[in-house]
């Protein structure tokens, strides 16, 4: 062995992870600002630096468009697919940061924002992760920061949520790691591309892939691995919940899509993935049924998120090229609809009260007509009604399911959507119904007007994507 220890990667390799690095470094900058700046501006400075870092990350990622590159010996595959997911993460993180102004006590604020950014950088790593090591690295980076963030609020439920998330998520990580080990044992390689070669031992390979998918399903909170989601979402502070509801899902979906499309051998691929479509179907039904009874917006959106991820996974059924495009399109739509709804909740919150109870929406249509109108629009989108991106996304998913021969999945999607209408319109009804006896909640003065920006961005995006869905036609890339 005459080899000297050199780092075998050049500038082009590092360039692929500049976006994630930019976000991670902006977290450090936020912490530094907290140390150096006077107390009154610390919070705002950390927030501004975070948004700046995310925007820089988004811009850097966009530069890679059209120049696909397999960096780090296939550990990070940069290309359209990775870039789209990176942009989704950046977008979701920025929209969540707009809600994050009141997050944490004064001395925690910068730390909380830094954690959020690190978590986002983990998700950005997942966007391009193409071997089992980078996948695990990304998932742990994403999750570790979130464990802390969940518990950052002072109330008891937050600590409970953090602990619950920590224990259950670690268990899932263990499953995933075990699955990865078996996959490595079966194929002798950790890169996803190598997994697609016919494995030596089927039993080992199947078990490995199954355990890996269990871990993924947990992170995606697909039924029946969803039990943690409502409790954690409810306990965590609002901006963290908003962030989790999109970023975790986007990162994990990137892994799932890459695994389903690029890593599985042609022959066994569909057999291995078949249970996943069943889980998607279960999620659509169970998630929506459970959402019916919720009286807290965070819990309602948690269950609705379970169902929405079911729709997205259903789009992947049959692993058709169309399916992936439409899954990505619906994920973008979901990002805007969900974060729009969370922004409205944030605008209703006051100190010591997050405004997420359904009761705080009572009569909102008369107290704050514009806000109520926006909320109605977002809920219409989540329910898949026009004129929103949710409607267009749903028709595209239905079309791709029918096209791939999964008509039963399309049928269940329709049933799930019909059930979900009650859950979403319950909120609309609360906002507009004239109830004589109900006490009118005091007009909320929001702790920060920043979420209005998020509301505006999301509403415009949902309308435009709904009427002019360019992306699904040609722009969205396949796995590379």
């Amino acid at each position, binding site marked *: 062995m005459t080899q000297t220890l050199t780092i075998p990667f050049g500038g082009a390799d590092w360039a692929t992870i500049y976006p994630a690095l930019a976000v991670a470094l902006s977290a450090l900058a936020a912490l530094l600002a907290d140390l150096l700046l006077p107390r009154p501006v610390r919070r705002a400075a950390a927030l501004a630096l975070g948004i700046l870092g995310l925007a820089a990350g988004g811009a850097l990622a966009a530069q890679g468009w059209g120049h696909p590159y397999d960096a780090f010996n296939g550990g990070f595959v940069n290309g359209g697919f990775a870039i789209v997911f990176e942009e989704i993460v950046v977008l979701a993180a920025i929209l969540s940061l707009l809600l994050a102004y009141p997050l944490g006590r004064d001395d925690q604020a910068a730390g909380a924002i830094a954690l959020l950014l690190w978590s986002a950088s983990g998700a950005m790593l997942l966007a391009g992760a193409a071997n089992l090591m980078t996948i695990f690295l990304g998932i742990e980076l994403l999750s570790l920061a979130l464990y802390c963030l969940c518990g950052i609020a002072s109330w008891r439920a937050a600590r409970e949520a953090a602990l619950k998330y920590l224990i259950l998520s670690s268990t899932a990580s263990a499953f995933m790691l075990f699955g990865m080990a078996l996959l490595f044992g079966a194929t002798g390689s950790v890169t996803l591309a190598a997994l697609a070669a016919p494995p030596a031992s089927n039993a080992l390979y199947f078990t490995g892939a199954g355990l890996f998918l269990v871990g993924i399903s947990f992170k995606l909170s697909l039924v029946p691995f969803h039990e943690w989601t409502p409790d954690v979402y409810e306990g965590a502070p609002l901006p963290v919940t908003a962030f989790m509801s999109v970023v975790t899902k986007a990162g994990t979906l990137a892994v799932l899509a890459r695994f389903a499309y690029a890593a599985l051998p042609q022959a066994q691929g569909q057999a291995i993935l078949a249970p996943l479509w069943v889980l998607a179907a279960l999620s659509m039904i169970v998630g929506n049924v459970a959402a019916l009874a919720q009286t807290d917006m965070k819990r309602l959106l948690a269950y609705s998120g379970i169902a929405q991820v079911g729709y997205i996974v259903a789009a992947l059924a049959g692993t058709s090229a169309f399916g992936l495009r439409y899954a990505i399109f619906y994920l973008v739509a979901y990002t805007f609809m969900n974060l729009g709804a969370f922004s409205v909740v944030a605008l209703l919150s006051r100190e010591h009260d997050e405004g997420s109870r359904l009761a705080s929406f009572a009569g909102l249509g008369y107290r704050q007509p514009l806000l109520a109108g926006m909320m109605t629009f977002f809920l219409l989108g989540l329910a898949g009604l*026009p004129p929103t991106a949710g409607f267009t996304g*749903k028709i595209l998913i239905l079309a791709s399911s029918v096209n791939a021969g999964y008509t039963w999945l399309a049928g269940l999607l329709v049933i799930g959507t019909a059930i979900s*209408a009650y859950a979403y319109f319950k909120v609309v009804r609360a906002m507009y119904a004239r109830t004589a006896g109900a006490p009118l909640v005091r007009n909320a003065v929001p702790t920060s007007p920043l979420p209005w920006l998020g509301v505006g961005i999301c509403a415009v995006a949902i309308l435009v994507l709904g009427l002019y869905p360019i992306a699904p036609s040609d722009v969205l890339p396949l796995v590379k």
Partner: protein
Amino acid sequence: MIAALVLVPILAGLALYALPRRAEGVAQWFGVAVAFAMFGLTLAASGAPDESLRWLQRPFTASFHLGLGHGLSYWILLLLTLATGCALLVVRLPRRRDFVAQMLLELGAMSGVFLARDLLLFALFWDLMLIPVFLVLIEWAPSPRSTSSWRYLVYNLTGGLALLLATAAYGIVQGSTDVIGRAPAQLAVISDAWSFWIFAGLAFAFLIKTPVWPFHTWMPETYADLPAGMAAVVSAVQSKAGLYGFIVIGATLFPGPMHQVAPLMFVLGLVALLYGGLIALVQDDAKRVVAYSSLSHLGLIVLAIFSFNPIALGGAVVYIVAHGLFSAGLFIVLGEVEDREETRLLSRLGGLGARNPRLAGALTIVVLAALGLPGLCGFAGEILILTGLYQAGFVAAAVIALIPVVLAAAYMLRILQRTMHGPEVADVPQREDMTALEIAALAPLAIAIVLLGVDPGPLAASTQPAQPVGSSAAGPAQVARAAGTAR
């Protein structure tokens, strides 16, 4: 220009929310002006070329394709804009600005349904027209515990989603959804199995929306809870969307499945016809009487459509518009009655005609139209449908369909007698008789009722594109003229 028929009401409706809440009168006149402007625009745009804008490229092509033509869409749009305008003239609700805005949004969405020449666009507007009705149901429901909004939403959304799934499947199989009004020869042939199931999805949506027994249970409650103006528009026009779908989409794109399900539809139509008529006889709430009478009348139209007889089909088209005219009139007049007596229960009403002769006159006109008095529009439709059924050989059905025509006379006259005649109930302070404005609101409807009754010809002839190929001798227009002039 055609796009304006959809966009102007929607934008105007949204713009109303920018008005101060107290500017109720301004909002109302603005709404009336928009509705009648749309009426004028429809007249002016008759025969204008289609307007189209590419929407989706993959997985199937779809366009924002709107077309008016001279056919059924044109007549329904005239009915819709007229009914909306008239209903808005007499609105007397609290929070009128919001109500007018919702009426305009509903006007735009429904215009979209009847103008869409793309199946996906049709599905979009189909779902869109749910929302204003739902919002009105929750905001102006008489009781906060009322469940009518849920029933309305769940039933109609389920139908809408079935329509959406069928549209997606159709798009995949056909490659394009830009198909409404295109000649069947221009389209790819779809396999029988696909064709049947896609049609089943569409038919499910159409049956719920109409509604046809046994999917009607959302309807009486919804009509009873909706404020008169919205109830008028929903029963006059929204309930026709399903029938329009059968005629314009079903008959041209899915002729095979249409014939396959015809026996079933015949049974459903006959049950609706009799059941609706019988229940209408015993309802105490006047609005519910009208609701169940709608079930009965629309059942007759279903029979006509599925008899595939050109005369019956012409009659169906006439009756679609006729029913729209008199049911809008009925709901508006009953709204006036409720305004004065604060109840709709027939058992608690009576003798209103003594002090409100003009109101009694208005109710008499719409009631007579509804029970099918010759010379008014209801008769023109009924006689064409019955003639067509008889000519197509459905003699038994034609005979059974006569029963509800008799029942209609009973329950409609019952409304008239219980509200306007009999001993006066004088426990509630009464408003004065109809004002000039209220008369002006009903006059256009009454004129249309008479005009259509005298000459239903142009309307009956408007089914040309949907007419089955190889139809028999006398066209619907000729028979219609004959029916109109025979008197």
